[in-house]
């Protein structure tokens, strides 16, 4: 191998890396959709509990549809993404329990800043995972 092929090989490695890494934005999008969906869900559950039956199923269906579409477009899984997303799910479940407990035991019903803040809690792990995947 002479100088040129070695440089060409390194250039090809760089090209391929750029192409594969550019697809990590699908994972970022999935994380953001999940975070927004969770926040809207928990805020709505606490602020308008009587309307739950009306909005829950359509909202879950829309979210699931968007996530399925994104998942279909995901043709590369970024390094660390699988580990980060699995952790995000478990931490989010824990924070959701905190949100439900605080909303039911401490906060008055109806929309308030506190309801929004507790509603954001379960979304935080997905926002963090999206940020970590996006910055690599």
């Amino acid at each position, binding site marked *: *191998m002479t100088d040129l092929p070695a440089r060409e090989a390194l250039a090809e490695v760089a090209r391929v890396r750029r192409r594969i890494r550019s697809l990590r934005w699908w994972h970022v999008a999935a994380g953001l959709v999940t975070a927004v969906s969770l926040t809207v869900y928990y805020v709505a559950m606490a602020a308008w509990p009587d309307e739950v039956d009306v909005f829950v199923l359509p909202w879950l269906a829309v979210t699931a549809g968007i996530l399925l579409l994104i998942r279909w477009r995901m*043709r590369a899984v970024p390094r660390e993404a699988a580990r980060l997303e699995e952790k995000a799910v478990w931490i989010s479940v824990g924070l959701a329990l905190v949100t439900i407990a605080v909303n039911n035991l401490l906060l008055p019903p109806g929309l308030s800043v506190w309801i929004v803040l507790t509603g954001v809690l379960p979304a935080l792990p997905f926002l963090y995972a999206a940020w970590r995947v996006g910055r690599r």
Partner: protein
Amino acid sequence: MSHPRHRLDEVIHTPVRLSIMAALDAAERVHFGLLRDTVEVSDSLLSKHIVNLEEAGYVTVTKGHEGRRPRTWYALTPLGREAFATYLATLDEIVGRVSQPPLR
């Protein structure tokens, strides 16, 4: 035999397999279609090179379904990642060596 080119891994050191290894090294796993489009080869040629890499213990293949459609994913094994890192280091060494001014 002191020149670093002698240490280049022959399994990786072909244009198609180099591109496959670079793609797989950039992700946890990559879908067959994306790999084929990125490397710009036919399905059959990609499969042939994947078999070579699999036999060397560098690549694992996971076949599954999403809905009714079959999906095949490829990933580097720890051995494959290590081999590719060594290969890149050797390339860097060659480039660095050739870039040095000639001796008089």
